[in-house]
């Protein structure tokens, strides 16, 4: 135990340190909310002047939450939590497992609450009353002969003494999860145009390409609006390709990502190109082709002798949904224009020929890609924290002793109890046992 007595150990074991660290973390955290984070260096010079900007640079203020000193504070907190726990746990463990039937009898009378009842019943009869009262109120008693008397003991929820350590451990688990995430995971993004796929994403940290080991295909991106013009939904129909073969498809929206092999793909943005995707099929020959076209240009499909183009657009009755006027001609006769709504498919009937014509505005979907193997540790930590807080705040270790001893021609029944928290609630429990015991003693027939 001598090494535990050294000053570094006791420094980290103190609750004072915890208070200081919490205080400094709170103060330090404010800085990063007031001074913009991760802005380009010039922004700091413009806003705060060159000297201040240099000062910020030295203290890592522009990326404050990853700075050595902020991480240092978090490490202090973690060390403090760990050492506090190591320091106090053995004691708590002893309190939880100890044999309370060996409690010093002299201490019982000094406990709060405690109460002595004198009765003319024999000790054994009084003990029977005590056993019954405890059992009636949900207390399971053990007993042992002590100093020519009988000691009964019952307790509830001794393990709740661990609650606060569960909370402390949960914070360490969350830290561990965050470290696992930052060491073995990454965050990046990728823009994938419709009908294209990508096997690479770009890291947020340094824009370095990261190979996924499989491909993500964006089959289709749709954007819908509310009547007031606010965006209603961003939806990407994605597929995962392994060696060019589709192994998984999912339509993702914000708040509903796709996960594959530890990578999660989040809908985060989109890009519009003022271009259109046309897919055209000759229903007889089954000849099909996809075109990426700009409006106002004449497009030729030589295989089928088809020429077409977009010549006009109008908003439909649905706000922000457009329909397009398409000019269409093939070998069978003169050009016939028709209207088609964005995203629709229509059949174009010509003299003896039939085509399936689909049009949609061309987008690229912006995906955020995360690999975070630590996230489940973080969630586990969060659940442990809530559980631990509830136990630590609302449950207490409650103990009741009843010591029965012959005192001259009377029997003394000493009822004592204690709880480590929420004493008023415990006192109600205690009074209930006491009341029931007094009634039983009064009602018991005298044998002498």
């Amino acid at each position: 135990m001598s090494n535990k007595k050294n000053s570094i150990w006791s420094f980290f074991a103190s609750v004072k340190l915890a208070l200081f660290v919490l205080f400094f973390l709170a103060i330090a955290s404010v800085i990063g909310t007031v001074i913009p984070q991760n802005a380009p260096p010039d922004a700091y010079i413009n806003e705060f002047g060159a000297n201040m900007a240099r000062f910020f640079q030295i203290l890592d203020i522009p990326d404050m939450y990853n700075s050595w000193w902020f991480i240092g504070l978090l490490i202090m907190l973690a060390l403090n939590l760990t050492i506090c726990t190591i320091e106090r746990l053995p004691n708590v463990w002893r309190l939880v497992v100890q044999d309370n039937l060996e409690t010093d009898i002299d201490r019982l009378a000094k406990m709060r609450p405690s109460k002595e009842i004198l009765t003319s019943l024999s000790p054994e009869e009084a003990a029977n009353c005590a056993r019954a009262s405890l059992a009636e109120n949900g207390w399971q008693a053990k007993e042992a002969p002590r100093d020519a008397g009988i000691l009964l003991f019952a307790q509830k929820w001794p393990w709740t003494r661990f609650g606060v350590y569960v909370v402390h451990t949960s914070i360490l688990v969350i830290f561990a999860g965050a470290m696992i995430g930052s060491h073995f995971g990454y965050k990046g993004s990728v823009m994938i145009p419709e009908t294209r796929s990508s096997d690479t994403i770009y890291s947020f940290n340094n824009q370095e390409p990261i190979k996924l080991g499989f491909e993500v295909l964006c089959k289709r991106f749709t954007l819908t609006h509310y009547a007031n013009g606010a965006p209603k939904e961003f939806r990407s129909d994605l597929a995962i390709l392994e060696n060019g073969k589709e192994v998984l498809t999912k339509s993702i929206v914000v708040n509903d990502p796709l996960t594959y092999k530890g990578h999660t793909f989040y809908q985060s943005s989109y890009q519009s190109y003022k271009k259109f995707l046309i897919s055209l099929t000759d229903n007889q020959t089954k000849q099909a082709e996809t075109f990426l076209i700009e409006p106002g240009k004449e497009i030729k499909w030589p295989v089928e002798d088809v020429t077409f183009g977009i010549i006009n657009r109008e908003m439909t009755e649905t706000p922000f949904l457009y329909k397009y006027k398409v000019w269409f001609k093939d070998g069978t006769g003169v050009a016939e224009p028709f209207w088609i709504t964005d995203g629709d498919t229509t059949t174009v009937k010509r003299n003896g020929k039939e085509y399936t014509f689909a049009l949609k505005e061309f987008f690229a979907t912006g995906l955020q890609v995360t690999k975070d193997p630590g996230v489940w540790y973080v969630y586990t930590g969060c659940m442990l924290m809530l559980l631990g807080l509830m136990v630590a705040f609302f449950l207490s270790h409650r103990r009741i002793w009843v010591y029965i001893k012959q005192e001259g021609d009377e029997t003394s029944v000493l009822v004592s109890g204690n709880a480590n928290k929420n004493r008023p609630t415990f006192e109600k429990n205690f009074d209930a046992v006491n009341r029931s015991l007094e009634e039983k003693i009064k009602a018991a027939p005298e044998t002498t």
Partner: protein
Amino acid sequence: MTSSQLLGISTLGYLVASALYIATLIFKTKKSGIAASVVTLITFLVQTVGIGLRWYESYHLGFGHAPLSNMYESLVFFSWAIVIFYLILEVKFNNRLIGAFAIPFAFISMAYASFGKGITQEISPLIPALQSNWLIAHVITCFIGYAAFAVACGLGCMYLVKSSAEDKPDAGLIGTLPGLKVIDDIIHKTIIFGFLWLSAGIITGAIWANSAWGTYWSWDPKETWSLITWFIYAATLHARFTRGWQGKRIAWLAIIGFLSVIFTYFGVNFLLSGLHSYGSS
């Protein structure tokens, strides 16, 4: 009746209730105390119906969602949570005088929702980032916590008022307040309750952020301020549990903690920029 009429009546109701609670404190009249409780309870019911009706109306507009999606709706819910929390306290501790330090918060919140600059009362559809069940869990957990902290702050003020007049304990209105030990105990319990819900609020927010953006924590100003608030209350609880702090110190910490809550709630929206911008109008 429309929801906005009902919520307008609630604003008025909480004003009357606040006045009655304060009158009870000053004039020590039992009748005004009962009237205050009755008005509060009725207003609370009207407000509950108002919130429910607003929810229903949103379905009529074609984009139904729980009324917890913008500054106006959060203020209404904040006041609702303060009132239900207070009412439970009133019954549990059988003391009406706390109302003078709690119901005014509910009124201020409603008044600010109704008349505050730049706060739109319109029911608007949810943008994609908000289309999540975590929205409901997150807002409810946070605001139950905030409501408890508001009441703790009111109790802290009450404690300081009472203790500043300690030498003349039964003088005037101060004498009618609950004993210092009782107030201290209620402050402590209220902070514990709020802390648990704030923790749950931060956690549900983190889970939501992770399901929307793939990051459970990004040191966004709102997140950071909620954590600062959490640190303050965590320190308060440790100071009490392990160093035996109580009385004035805890009362001040209850007030400081609530200032941090207020800054997390409003200050971040108006003074700092970040991901939570949709909460600002």
